[in-house]
């Protein structure tokens, strides 16, 4: 594929990578190929200034103290950015990774909360990422709060939501106002489509900019070095998107 055109996944990786600018240590959790690629791209672009810890990777994960080290690191302020998703996400940035229905009697079960209830509170720049942009995902109020978007005064909380990236758009989050604001809409989509597919209220500027596409040199990096690095942990994704096997 030429660097004049890009795949949807490549655009999303670029949007997430821009959000990691200046972060010293970014960690990536389970089932996160696009955030993983973004972290590896940000590291490559930083020329070594950004460190990366990809859960499940051997080559791109420095931890030697077992599964707990990521969490201990986060509580000490040693992790600058992390990604979280959600089966449901609401307008106050509460996320639900548990299921839909009247807990514990659920109609739909998701895998579970993983480390979200902790990392959302402690990592300064948490980037919410969910590719599916629909009213099924972006709801007025989540069924179950795996991790709250905001906390009452007096609760120890150096961390929280910074931005939300979806298959259609990018939003910023204002923690004081507990509200998202539409920041840009991806090429091929428009603000009306975003509004139609979002089940919660958010702020929207009169003119919404288009999301900046990935520059050609980022695409070259992604399709070469980054695809190879990612294939170790996400072979299915790397093969489907980049046609790349593990290096």
């Amino acid at each position: 594929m030429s660097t004049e055109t890009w795949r949807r996944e490549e655009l999303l990786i670029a949007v997430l990578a821009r959000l990691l600018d200046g972060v010293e240590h970014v960690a990536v959790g389970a089932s996160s190929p696009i955030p993983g690629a973004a972290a590896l791209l940000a590291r490559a672009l930083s020329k070594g200034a950004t460190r990366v810890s990809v859960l499940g990777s051997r080559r791109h994960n420095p931890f030697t103290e077992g599964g707990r080290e990521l969490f201990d690191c986060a509580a000490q302020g040693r992790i600058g950015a992390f990604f979280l998703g959600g089966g449901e996400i609401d307008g106050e940035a509460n996320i639900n990774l548990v299921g839909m229905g009247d807990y514990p009697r659920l109609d739909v079960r998701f895998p579970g909360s993983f480390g979200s209830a902790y990392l959302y509170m402690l990592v300064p720049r948490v980037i919410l990422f969910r590719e599916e942009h629909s009213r099924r995902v972006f709801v007025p109020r989540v069924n179950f709060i795996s991790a709250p978007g905001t906390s009452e005064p007096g609760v120890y909380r150096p961390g929280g939501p910074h931005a939300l990236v979806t298959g259609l758009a990018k939003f910023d989050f204002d923690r004081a106002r507990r509200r998202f604001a539409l920041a840009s809409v991806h090429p091929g989509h428009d603000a009306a489509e975003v509004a139609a597919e979002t089940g919660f209220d958010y702020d929207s500027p009169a003119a919404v900019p288009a999301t900046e596409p990935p520059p050609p040199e980022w695409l070259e990096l992604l399709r070469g070095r980054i695809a190879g690095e990612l294939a170790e942990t996400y072979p299915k994704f790397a093969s489907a998107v980049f046609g790349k096997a593990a290096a």
Partner: protein
Amino acid sequence: MTATQFVDLEQLAGQLPDGAFIALPPDYSNVPMALTHALMRRPVRDLRLLCVPTSGIQADLLIGAGCVASVECAAISMGEQGPAPRFTAAVVAGRLKLVDSTCPAIHAALQAAEKGLPFMPLRGILGSDILRHRPDWKVMDNPFADTPDPIVLLPAIRPDVAVFHARWADRQGNVWIGRRRELMTMAHAARRSLVTVEAIFDGDLLAEDELAAGTIPGIYVDAVALAPRGAWPMGLADLYAPDVAHLAAYAKQARTDEGFRAYLAANHLEPSLVD
């Protein structure tokens, strides 16, 4: 304390009592699949699973085969292959007693157990519905702070048995796990550890620092069985990768009860007919 026993795989599976509270490693860390298969053939019953802190096909198989009474976990998922099908079906059907947790809470509660402490405080979690549904977790104010500072307290978790796979055990029962130190915490916290290994190490794993630093001393290891490729279809670092095609086929096939039964039959995982 007695010396580590060396037994065969079926004997190792036989040492796990029905109803035991057992700690399982996560998918990236030495999953004892051959032992799991032996437990299903036995079949074991009423296990109470503690996923440290998550699980995949290992928990899914045990749940689907009717070996499980309850599960405490931060998540059960097949990662890139999608949802864990039998776990998901059992929860929606209301057949599984499930205690939702979060990864660092499971790690921290095991650390309390390995220190012999009654509880461990942990940051975060406040405001999560997980906490609302955990009557066993408490919130208190940090006694060292000048202003109110609520913090969550978790009771120690002491599993009956930790099970995991490893590359080597030596003849003294020392087990090499490399950097997979959640297995060390599991072995410290659990009353007993039952371990499968790729091979017996002909020498002393504690003799040189290079290997000793990644070795669980035999004092924590009750029994060891040989199980070459004993993590399959999961992988074992540096030796073999996960069998992605097999895992993908399972994730798809086990979406239905019939598909799951067919998988068990094809892989010889049904309860053994001979006693």
